């Protein structure tokens, strides 16, 4: 028996969200008195053995360039084979783009109950119960998994990574893979930017910015803080900003350590996707803006005056 963690990579590097999945899976293995093993598919640039320090004893690596792009069907088959081989009782994914594609398929294939969007460790005192986000962050549900094998897709930024000691044994896997049917013909990376769901800090702005030409200061502040940028729905609907920046109930749900909302009113649909952020800062000229009720810190003021001052203050702090 063991816990299997899907370690996913982007351009050959292990994603931050996967480190969280490893630490989470290792902790579950500890709870269950068993060991945690990882699986990596495709070619990698990182040296995998050192990832043992996050708690995986072994990493199964299928070093095949046909797996460099995701075809959930092909991935599922391979992961299922390894899971069966090592008798995995719990399988952990990050609930990111790849996890969302693969975990549901694997759930069907292994007849294993899936909890996607998990935010806490399973409670194994009476069955196997995992807490997850529901109603787009407005509530939690405790889901009881009633199958022999359990699959958990952990929300990014929901579990803290901690590094200890140890190296992982790398097991080179050589099993045939099914023909890839989803063929990737082009990649458009918004390079250098921090992926929104993984970001520790997110600087977000709304209609209060008046127009796309005023985003320079938002981007500058984000850059100084190594933050990702986000926006409210009307801003992306009006094409002031790209769709992938839209956060909220009908956009991306995020849970960074720090969310800075500038010129956003704080409508219920917006709050739903961001209220799991640890610290929320609101900059709004309207003291009655609903966002202040959900905020930890706030400034009632004009963004066009406050944001440049924030940039100066951060520069001073960072000595740049």
């Amino acid at each position, binding site marked *: 028996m063991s816990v299997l963690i899907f370690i996913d990579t*982007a351009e050959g590097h292990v994603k931050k*969200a996967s480190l969280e999945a490893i630490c989470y899976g290792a902790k579950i293995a500890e709870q269950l008195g068993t060991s945690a093993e990882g699986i990596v598919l495709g070619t990698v640039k990182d040296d995998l053995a050192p990832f043992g320090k996050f708690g995986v004893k072994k990493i199964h690596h299928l070093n095949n360039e046909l797996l460099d*792009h995701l075809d*959930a*069907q092909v991935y*599922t088959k391979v992961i299922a084979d390894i899971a069966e081989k090592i008798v995995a009782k719990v399988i952990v994914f990050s*609930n*990111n*783009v790849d996890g*969302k*594609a693969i975990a*549901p*398929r*694997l*759930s*069907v*294939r292994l007849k294993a*109950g*899936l909890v*996607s*969007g998990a935010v806490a460790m399973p409670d194994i005192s009476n*069955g196997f119960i995992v807490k997850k*986000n*529901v*109603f787009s*962050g407005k*509530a939690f*549900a*405790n*889901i*009881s998994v*009633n*199958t022999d094998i359990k699959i958990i897709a952990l929300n990014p930024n929901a579990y803290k990574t901690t590094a200890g000691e140890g190296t992982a044994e790398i097991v080179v896997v050589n099993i045939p893979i099914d023909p890839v*049917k*989803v*063929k990737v*013909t082009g*990649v458009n990376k*918004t*390079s250098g*930017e921090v992926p*929104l*769901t993984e970001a520790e800090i997110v600087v977000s702005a709304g209609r209060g910015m008046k127009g796309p030409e005023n985003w320079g200061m938002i981007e500058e502040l984000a850059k100084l803080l190594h933050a990702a940028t986000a926006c409210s729905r009307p801003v992306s609907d009006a094409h002031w900003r790209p769709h*992938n920046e839209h956060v909220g*109930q009908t956009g991306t749900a995020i849970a960074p*350590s*720090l969310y800075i909302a500038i010129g956003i009113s704080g409508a*219920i649909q917006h709050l*739903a996707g961001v209220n*799991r952020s640890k610290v929320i800062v609101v900059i709004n000229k309207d003291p009655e803006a609903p966002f*202040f009720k959900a905020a*930890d*810190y*706030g400034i009632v003021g*004009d963004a066009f005056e406050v944001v440049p001052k*924030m940039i100066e*203050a*951060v520069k*001073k*702090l960072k000595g740049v």
Partner: protein
Amino acid sequence: MKILVCISKTPDTTAKIAFTDNNTKFDSTGVQWIINPYDEWYSLVRAIELKESDASTVIQLVTVGSSETDPIIRKALALGGDEAIRVNTDSQDSFYIASQISEVAKQGGYDLIFTGKETIDYNGSSIGGMLAELLNLPYVSLATKFELSGNKAVVTREIDGGEEVCEVELPVVVSCQKGVAEQRIPNMRGIMSARAKPLKVVEPSGVNTLTAISSFELPPAKAGVKLVSPDNVEELIRLLKEEAKVI
């Protein structure tokens, strides 16, 4: 071309989220139900656009739910689509729902199956993937753009920090999100014609669930906002550094 669009009902985005029966059930008292926005704005509208560019396209809608779901499915038909199928059962876990839809899909011989990225109530993001596995079809998730090119789908999908374009032969299951299409408002003609469109009710097949909800919780309330003067922005940055320790 035959398209199946999966439709789910969800509480309105402004609905009060509360629970009953010792926090084991969602309290639907006074709740307005809507079509799950991802299903309505993206999957359904894109299917309608495909039919607009090729009139021989047939669009069928499927939903899993009791008769309470009928107004939602009629509203979807008012936007477009030729007919609807409702699997007559209270929806349970994702596996149960996906299994019911897969039974419908097996009968229909669809070239394309659309789901929304997730429902805004249970946020599972699982139906599309489960359905694809049950039907042994390829799956492209989190699409932001969808085109047809002969017997192939050309789909742009989200990846971490960007997008990628992929090609896949039909039939395929695709989950849709923003970018795929733009929200439409049903018009009077659509609403009138929806009444005459067939809504077939089928009975569920016997499937076990894999998970169950044991209870719900609401998040703890925030302690209250600490306001800083706009003339003292440095103080805010100091608080974020020294008190909140987030920068």
